[in-house]
């Protein structure tokens, strides 16, 4: 029986789309959508206090997630708080990604003394624990998005740099680089137009695997009070603020914490999928698993490889 209609993903044009892990993808889509357009889901304010309605449990009329110590609707705060977490994560990735990419390409391509010098600097930055640097930084300066982004980026750029440089070293040996030199292209041109586009794949993979860590780091900082300051909501901060109320108002910490876990989980799963798709061998593993599932559900037609009787 051909159950094509039940599947959202277009099977014929992009066969690899079938391999996307569905639950994380859908969940991620839901989270991102609701966090980017919170106005569609809620009308409450995140900051206006409503003391008569404080500490209402989840499920109360008008407040699916309940309210916090100041009577603010928790659902609204979770949605807006998600914005902040994602904003910080995105900014960190942009900032540390750009610095890491630039240094990696320059060091990897130019080689020699430039490479040696830049890599020693990277080593220095890598040797500091990110958490420590972040805390020191965040405490020394005024709390806020800018501080948090800078604090995390300081360590993270070096992580990107290492991995991308390895890629650059390999790309440098490709013949199209020699051909570009023969054509008289300057080093700068080669770095921007030939090397940069070809490292973006690796960059994407590293980014998708690290974004979960970045979100967690920001949440930890906010939890410790060194990140985003109230009244701006942030999931980590909300988890921290609800610490004292765990016994009687568990929803203050657990719900934002759950949202955090869900987001990181989704990013990790999608990140794994991206990495699998980029590597030919893992891609094969992925497609075999997907085809097997589809055959067992009666959708796929490639019975020749999948029938269990042929499995050796």
């Amino acid at each position: 029986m051909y159950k094509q209609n039940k599947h959202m993903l277009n099977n014929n044009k992009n066969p690899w789309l079938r391999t996307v892990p569905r639950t994380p993808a859908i969940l991620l889509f839901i989270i991102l959508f609701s966090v980017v357009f919170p106005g569609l889901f809620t009308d409450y304010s995140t900051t206006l206090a409503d003391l008569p309605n404080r500490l209402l449990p989840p499920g109360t009329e008008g407040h699916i997630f309940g309210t916090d110590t100041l009577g603010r609707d928790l659902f609204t705060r979770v949605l807006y708080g998600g914005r902040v977490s994602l904003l910080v994560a995105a900014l960190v990735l942009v900032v540390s990604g750009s610095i890491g990419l630039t240094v990696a390409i320059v060091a990897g391509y130019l080689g020699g003394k430039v490479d040696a010098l830049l890599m020693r600097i990277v080593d220095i930055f890598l040797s500091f624990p990110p958490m420590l640097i972040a805390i020191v930084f965040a405490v020394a300066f005024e709390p806020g998005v800018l501080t948090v982004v800078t604090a995390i980026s300081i360590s993270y750029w070096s992580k990107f740099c290492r991995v991308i440089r390895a890629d650059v070293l390999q790309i440098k040996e490709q013949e199209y680089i020699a051909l570009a030199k023969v054509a008289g292209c300057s080093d700068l041109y080669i770095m921007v137009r030939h090397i940069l586009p070809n490292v973006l794949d690796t960059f994407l993979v590293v980014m998708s695997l690290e974004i979960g860590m970045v979100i967690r780091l920001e949440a930890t900082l906010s939890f410790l009070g060194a990140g985003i300051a109230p009244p701006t909501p942030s999931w980590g901060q909300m988890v921290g603020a609800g610490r004292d109320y765990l016994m009687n108002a568990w929803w203050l910490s657990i719900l934002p914490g759950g949202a955090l876990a869900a987001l990181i989980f989704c990013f990790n799963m999608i990140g794994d999928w991206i990495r699998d798709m980029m590597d030919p061998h893992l891609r094969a593993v992925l497609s075999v698993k997907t085809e097997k599932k589809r055959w067992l559900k009666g959708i796929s037609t490639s019975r020749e490889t999948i029938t269990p009787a042929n499995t050796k």
Partner: protein
Amino acid sequence: MALLEVKDLKAYFQTTAGVVKAVNGVSFEVDKGKVLGLVGESGSGKTTIGHCLMNLLPKPAGRIVHGQILFDGVDILQSSEKEWQKLRGKDIAMIVQDPMSSLDPLFTIGDQVVEPIKIHRLINHKVSLQNRVVELLEKVRIPAPRDRIKDYPHQFSGGMRQRVVGAIALSCNPRLLIADEPTTSLDVTIQAQYLALLRDIQESDDLAMLFITHDLGVVAYLCTDVAVMYAGKIVEIGNVRDIYKNPAHPYTQALIRSVPHNDAKVEKLYGIAGAPPSLINLPAGCAFAPRCKQKIAQCETAELPPVTKISCDHTVSCWRHV
């Protein structure tokens, strides 16, 4: 009964784009003392056959879906992994193209040559082991073998490394040797040395060899029989002289006409227009028909041409010879 008989072997790969029918119904025989050359271009399936014979298809994507491989009369495709491990390296050995990746840079060549012997427990005494290693290195004509046992792969040149790989393959006296393009990366004079060595060893040990290559010159030098592959099938198989002097299949003829000879000035070379078919959407019927200059009406049908005998050891799969 031949030492190795392959019957209707089919090996498929699962990819995101579909099922790749790399080997699509291949049958051949290799007997003791004979060298079968498996000739084809990229995508013909020849390397996959080599892997099938050792049951080393990349899992989980690759799978043997049909056929029999009879080694000494026993269908080894039915064997368990343990039985396969007993065969590999001992009865069936393999040498591949890139000597750099066949040798582990962290171990001495002495260690690597002795490894299969130790694994298959053929010799236990330490001194005999060392003597055996020296014997093997002498067999592959490595100069001053006793001094070189403690050397590492990077201390050898490409040709020498390929010989060490040969020594490892021969260490347990295999009965079948599968060689997958072993000379493609070697220089002309080194290749000549290596092939002369292979020929001498093959003749003295009465070894059965399956030689996978795309180089027609090598095949003419070394092989007793030739199987020509196209799009996962063998299109022609026969004695090497028959194939070179009277090629029957249009693909074989076109192949021979497209290669420049080393020993004479060729006036014109003829390439084969078009490209090999996609192994995912193989056309039904003769796979070479779209590119064939000698097509007849029968070739356009969706039926596979049957295998026809031209002489006692020359068969072809072509509608023109039916």
